[in-house]
């Protein structure tokens, strides 16, 4: 009885952590802040998104930033070549 109930009680909050293990409060605020500060989202918009929806926007933005950086690097190199050539 002791062991059974103990196991049952221990189980009770375990299920909770699967829903939160993928993120932390610190990361939650950092992500929201970055999206608001740099990409003009409002807090209401962000908070009313589904969790995976926000993940998609973060991934799309990160891809976009990477492409922009790549473009900038390429144009800087092209400019250098023009100046030296």
């Amino acid at each position, binding site marked *: *009885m*002791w062991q*059974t*109930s*103990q*196991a*049952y*009680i*221990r*189980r*009770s*909050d*375990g*299920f*909770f*952590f*699967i*829903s*939160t*293990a*993928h*993120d*932390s*409060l610190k990361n*939650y605020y950092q992500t*929201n802040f970055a999206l608001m500060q740099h990409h003009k989202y409002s807090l209401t918009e*962000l*908070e*009313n*998104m*589904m*969790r*995976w929806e*926000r*993940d998609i926007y973060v991934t799309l933005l990160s891809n976009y930033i990477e492409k922009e950086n790549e473009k900038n690097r390429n144009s800087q190199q092209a400019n250098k070549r023009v100046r030296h050539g």
Partner: protein
Amino acid sequence: MALPNIVTPEYETTLPSTDQKIKFRPFLVKEEKLMLMAAEGKDQSEIYKAVLKVLSDCILTKENLDVTDLPLFDIEWLFLQLRSKSVGEVVELRMKHIGDGGCGAYTDVEVKLDEVKVEKFEGHNPVIMLDDTVGITLKYPNLADVSEISSVTAENIFKVLESSIKNVFDKDRVYTEFTKQEINEFIGNMDNTQFLKVTKFFETIPKLRHKLEYKCQKCGKQVKHTLEGLMDFFL
């Protein structure tokens, strides 16, 4: 003027305890914040409050359903469904190779949440005959029953049992109303055999179970592991 509703997709699942169809929506970023705050605080009663709040908000079926009265395995199941539809259907686990011949190395394993099932046990019966004429009907402990328990002591375990007794019956009548003292005395008067029968009920409560098989990244051995009750998903 009424504010517009935020449109979210609806999903359906079946409650393992009653086979009732339940409609639910994924949790939103603001609801996730509630859970993260509770998780950060590590206060069990805050965690339970957050769980109940998020479940009540996300479950769209309101008829014949009181979230506070659901057994824990139903809550676990619903939470798994919510997590699956809100964040993703795959959980990444780091499994430590322990046990006989375990090398102690960690292996990354993916678990598909839609493969996790509630396992029911044969012979599980909430009606328990204590002798030829007297019996009890037990109910599954719910989140509220467990949330009152701060530590695992003999006294607290009796509390769970007390709150799990739905009725006591004999050949003449069914007793549904009794005082705390009466039920305490009743439990105290059980002999070992009767107590074991009650224990069997708790041992065979349905649980979430998933069998994992993976190859250890370090020693290459095939490892079998059973995840139970979701606690294992985090340890």
